[in-house]
């Protein structure tokens, strides 16, 4: 159970993340690795935390019938991620203030927040499917960026692009190791039937049926 104190902490952390991302905008965005793998995930995390806090105050948010099974929310997340994976969008964020502003709004609220509101409602098979796909796609990006003879972002050096590819590969391998490891060794034995349920903040393993 989340306590009020914890909730405040999460809210503060989310704000702090947003602020840090904005304050160190230039530094983070100077390098594609920190842009893609630090700033964007941090923004999404902020949205995740906001949604968690909000749904404690308004439980209806988490139980919205429109989002039964989490499908609708996860689809929003999907398109949000697809949009921000387009090299065009990343280039745009660097050259146009409007797109940059859109990034600070959409990544938290169209990726992080709906993910938080939908993930635990999704069927374990859907979750497993999405996680495996995330691994595959990270691999695809890694491969493309390491091997593509063209520069995908005008704003970044080819060399940085290749470093980004390698970083994607490392992230994919680490995630595979972490997720796989959890499935191998379940400390709490019984409830491991849901693929990776223990991500859930309040520990319940239920999902919409």
């Amino acid at each position: 159970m989340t306590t009020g104190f914890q909730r405040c902490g999460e809210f503060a952390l989310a704000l702090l993340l947003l602020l840090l991302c904005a304050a160190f905008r230039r530094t983070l965005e100077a390098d594609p690795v920190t842009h893609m793998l630090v700033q964007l995930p941090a923004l999404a995390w902020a949205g995740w935390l906001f949604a968690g806090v909000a749904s404690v105050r308004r439980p209806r948010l988490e139980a919205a019938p429109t989002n039964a099974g989490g499908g609708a929310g996860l689809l929003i997340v999907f398109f949000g991620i697809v949009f921000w994976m387009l090299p065009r969008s990343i280039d745009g964020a660097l050259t146009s203030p409007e797109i940059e502003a859109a990034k600070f709004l959409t990544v938290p609220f169209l990726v992080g927040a709906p993910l938080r509101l939908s993930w635990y409602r999704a069927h374990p098979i859907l979750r497993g499917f999405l996680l495996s796909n995330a691994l595959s796609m990270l691999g695809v990006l890694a491969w493309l960026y390491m091997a593509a003879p063209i520069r995908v972002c005008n704003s970044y050096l080819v060399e940085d692009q290749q470093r980004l590819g390698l970083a994607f590969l490392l992230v994919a391998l680490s995630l595979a190791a972490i997720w796989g490891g959890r499935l191998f060794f379940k400390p709490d034995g019984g409830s491991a039937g849901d693929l990776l349920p223990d991500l859930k903040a309040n520990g319940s393993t239920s999902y919409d049926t």
Partner: protein
Amino acid sequence: MSMTSTAAPSPQTGAVKVAMLISGAVFVLMMLVGVLMRAAQGDLLDLDPALFYQLMTAHGAGMVGTAGLSGAAIMWYFLGRHVALTRWVFHIFLALFLLGVVLILGAIFLGGFGAGWTFLFPLPAISGGAWDLGAAAAFLLGLVSIGVAFLLFYLEAGRAMISAYGGLGNALGWPLAFGGSTENAPPPTIIAAATVTVFNTLGIVVGAAVLVVSLINLYLPEFAVDALLAKNMIFFFGHVFINASIYMAVIAVYEVVPEYTGRPWKSSRIFALAWASTLLFVMAVYPHHLLQDLVMPGWMLIMGQVISYLSGIPLLAVTAFSLIVYLKGSDIRWDLAAGLLVLGVAGWSVGSVPAIMDGMISVNKVMHNTQWVPGHFHIYLLLGEVAMAFGFMAWLVRGDVAQSRFTTLDRLGIWVYIAGAGGFTLMFLISGALSVPRRWAVHMEDWLTQDRIATGFAVLAVLGALIFVLRFVGGLGRSSKA
């Protein structure tokens, strides 16, 4: 064994029968395609080379896919005896699988796609005008669809086993293998299913990445990717997948043979260790294929091959040896199912001998693309996996065990099949030893005699297979009762 378990998991007999019916039909059909190819090589038949390669693509993709399908159906059926599976997953699996088949067949026969089932990068994109982009994309999308089907299948299998056994480690039998603890040891079916689930899920994740990269490359050629890396990943993926189909099919041996011998097949420590070593072997080769530098020295290629060939040996040895022990001294009443299942283990064993020879003596043969290679994999597929699948089918419709008989037709079927498949594969090996290259549509004058003899044997094998499938169709109303 928990056949009486209170959780009452129950196999999905109906859906599994449908899957096996599809498998049997496709096996026979693709075997006919094989006969056509062999006849064309023997100049008994005039096939346009372009058509030959389309047929070869269909044969390869169709056979590998169907081996996977039949193996998966066997695994699903027997897994359902031990853990509670979500039924609709199997329906989605079948639907996606069929969708993939339709896409692939369309790509080949409507679009003229003929790059071979291994979709060797960058072949799909380079057609010399024989097929267009759409055909290549449809072929790749078909593979994606089948990949997704298997992914869902393994996710559900994994989920069910994790919740029943508390972690994959337990389901794999590691406490038994490494700690010798027989307490709560999972039955052989679970150990086998868990092993396959782990490495095939990984394989699919990697395979999906290759497929998506190939698709991107089709439409955005400026994203050229490294062909050698793609090739290694595809080969490895294909190898793991086809081996997995045998590992799934052998579950039928573990579950059905005890019904004949009256002795349950138990998970011994050696058994668990054999499966663990197979898993570890396969996993050891993964990073090697993923993380290798862009240019890979030849010896690493060879090592990779050798390790993946050897990976199944301990498992095979334990299975074959246990089978002999179980059979010896039990007054088994033979019938079609028992005969084919035992044949499957024998064929699997025999088929790995040339593979071991590849690995240990004449590595060159692996590298040099002779018919030796189709020789060894046709033995362990035709006489191994496919025989097990036919055996499972016969068992499914066997009806009451007391009334089950080994009819003359059954005996005829088995012997014709053994003679045909044995002779046919032997001819591949002979041709291979005489350096006849594989994947040639038109053969030289000197090779024609071998090709023609092989064609004759192939016809016999198809006849045997036809008998098995017709027996299955005839018995579809019945279900097996122990």
